[in-house]
């Protein structure tokens, strides 16, 4: 007998079904009596019983699954056989988990001889706690079900209760994403703090030398400026030089000139473009665009032309961002009231003048918000820069030279052999934190702009 959470979940789900049927039947029975009128329809009574039966038991199941292993281990450790265990954590853990695997039937025999005497205590303890758990769970389920069942009366407001519970479930679901984000930020923060104990924040933010060569004779330097510059050069300058004009022109064409048929085809195609995995763009940048640009640069006689160039990564990233910019601009231009356009046309302005002098200025706040969101996406983009921009931290304005970005360095720092307490590895978290803060700020500003703009026209 082991504690199988999935099977038990099915069991209480089955019980809940019975509870539902019972609750509905009982309320039907009550309703059948002459002169009584139910406040809620029978299935709400059924749901009320089922939820009371299911929810506490399931909650208990979740808690029990996470605490019972510790309880089992504690009991095993209290036995005589466990007294001879080595105190060193790693070895001890290995022996215990070996014994556990055999006790739970996942493994035919022990691999470590020291684990053999622990198998029986483990099996006993598992048994005991499994029974306790199942008994408690069933008791809870039945108690909940009975409680709910006895409350069924003609005037009982089961519908209100059920709807309240449903709302609670929805609230919990929406909290999951928020809490997860919060957890991610916290973990990022903790690792970053460990890094900042070794390297001062000022060095990371303002230092100009990036050389995290652990094990090298000279001390590591963690000056982030070359990375920030590379990120800005690729994501905020080159990519935007490509994406903003093309995206805007696309949006103007689609909103103002395109025949409905053209719009019907082009818009979905653009949206598909937005769904292409970034690694595919990365291939394109590294294998097609970068070599072509290098040849072009060599032809022009530009020094330091590299096959891994900021330009290649930036251009491809810009192409990737085009659908994003165009769809934001499209929305903003569409949100400008038709009255504005009519007003301009009625004054004898041409469509072109109307777009340039009325529609785009009116849509500008929304477009700006969209562009900021696009920048925040571009600087967080990883695959393209890893594949096409290179890893050498150069401070150069030459777009044909190789530069590196924050995201590319994070990948470099965290791949391969790594110790999780060296400054080199921890630097990745600190860089991640910087990136997170910057994109967060960009998003907040962008969403504010977009929101204020929307309000202006509604």
């Amino acid at each position: 007998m082991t504690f199988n959470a999935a099977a038990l979940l099915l069991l209480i789900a089955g019980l809940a079904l019975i509870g539902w049927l019972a609750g509905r039947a009982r309320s039907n029975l009550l309703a059948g009596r002459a002169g009584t009128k139910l406040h809620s329809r029978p299935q709400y009574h059924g749901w009320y019983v089922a939820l009371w039966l299911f929810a506490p038991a399931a909650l208990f199941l979740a808690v029990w699954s996470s605490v019972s292993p510790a309880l089992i281990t504690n009991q095993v450790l209290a036995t005589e056989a466990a007294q001879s265990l080595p105190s060193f954590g790693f070895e001890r853990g290995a022996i215990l988990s070996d014994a556990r695997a055999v006790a739970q039937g996942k493994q035919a025999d022990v691999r470590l001889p020291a684990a053999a005497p622990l198998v029986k205590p483990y099996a006993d303890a598992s048994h005991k706690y499994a029974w306790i758990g199942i008994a408690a769970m069933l008791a809870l389920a039945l108690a909940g079900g009975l409680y709910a069942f006895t409350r069924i009366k003609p005037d009982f407001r089961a519908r209100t209760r059920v709807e309240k519970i449903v709302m609670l479930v929805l609230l919990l679901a929406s909290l999951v994403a928020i809490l997860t984000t919060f957890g991610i930020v916290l973990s990022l923060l903790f690792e970053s703090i460990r890094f900042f104990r070794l390297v001062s924040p000022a060095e990371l933010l303002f230092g100009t030398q990036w050389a995290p060569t652990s094990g090298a004779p000279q001390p590591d330097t963690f000056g982030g400026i070359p990375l920030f510059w590379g990120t800005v050069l690729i994501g905020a300058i080159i990519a935007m030089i490509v994406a903003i004009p093309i995206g805007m022109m696309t949006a103007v064409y689609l909103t103002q000139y395109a025949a409905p048929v053209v719009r019907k085809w082009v818009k979905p195609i653009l949206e598909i473009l937005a769904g292409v995995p970034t690694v595919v763009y990365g291939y394109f940048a590294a294998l097609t665009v970068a070599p072509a640009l290098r040849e072009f640069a060599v032809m022009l006689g530009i020094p330091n032309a590299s096959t891994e160039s900021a330009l290649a990564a930036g251009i491809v990233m810009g192409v990737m961002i085009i659908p994003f910019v165009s769809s934001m601009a499209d929305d903003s231009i569409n949100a400008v009231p038709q009255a504005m356009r009519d007003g301009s046309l009625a004054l004898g302005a041409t469509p072109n003048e109307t777009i340039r002098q009325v529609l785009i200025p009116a849509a500008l706040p929304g477009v700006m918000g969209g562009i900021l969101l696009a920048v925040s996406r571009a600087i967080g983009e990883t695959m393209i820069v890893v594949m096409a921009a290179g890893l050498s931290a150069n401070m150069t304005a030459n777009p044909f030279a190789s530069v590196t970005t924050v995201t590319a360095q994070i990948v470099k720092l965290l791949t391969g052999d790594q110790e999780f307490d060296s400054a080199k590895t921890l630097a990745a978290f600190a860089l991640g934190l910087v990136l997170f803060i910057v994109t967060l700020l960009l998003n907040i500003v962008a969403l504010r702009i977009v929101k204020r703009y929307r309000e202006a026209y509604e």
Partner: protein
Amino acid sequence: MTQDDLTIADPKMKAHGVNVFYGEKQAINDVSIDVGTDLVTAFIGPSGCGKSTFLRSLNRMNDTVASAKVTGQIELDGEDIYAPSMDVVQLRARVGMVFQKPNPFPKSIYDNVGYGPRIHGLAPGKADLDVIVERALVRAGLWDEVKDRLQESGTALSGGQQQRLCIARAIAVDPEVILMDEPCSALDPIATAKIEELIHELRGKYAIVIVTHNMQQAARVSQRTAFFHLGTLVEYGKTTDIFTNPKQERTKDYITGRYG
């Protein structure tokens, strides 16, 4: 309608046998009307009667609706405005329009008024534009209220001021005809009174056509009134005649409030 008292000696615009279709649906059916040069002409009728549609065909604003089709003849100073040789941009500079809801551009008051003169190249220099903007705002009765804050956004004005700004904007390109599509329907009574006063003052300088669902307003501001019903022109005549002595039963029913 060949009554003698309706003959307008010098019509600014002449419409003859005009039909307007939206796709399959016919919105205007065989309408013929003359718009006098020095007169205010009011189009009245119940909602959906086609009065706005007809108004919008006078400066070809229906062109912006893809499914709209206009047949028949509309002339401005004897020139067919739907002829291929007619430049719609120039037509709209000559036939200005004020809309139901004030629609100032999200620009400064100055730039709102200066927009038309700029795109038509009416002001060679800044000083010329200043003169044009001031004159238009004075004519629209807005100058005293905004002369100290010309650089503020036009959208920050009150509804009535915005509508007068839109009138100033239309005046600034020096049109010959001004079309007004229910210009007061989004305004309060005081702002409405100001606009009506303004229409009185503008009379004689421009041929004015005003669509209104407010019959008292038509009676107050216009000299000619056309009553539309279900896409047809039921009766057209001197405003005083229409309101005191309508010839058609339907007109009488409408102005006495029997329907509409």
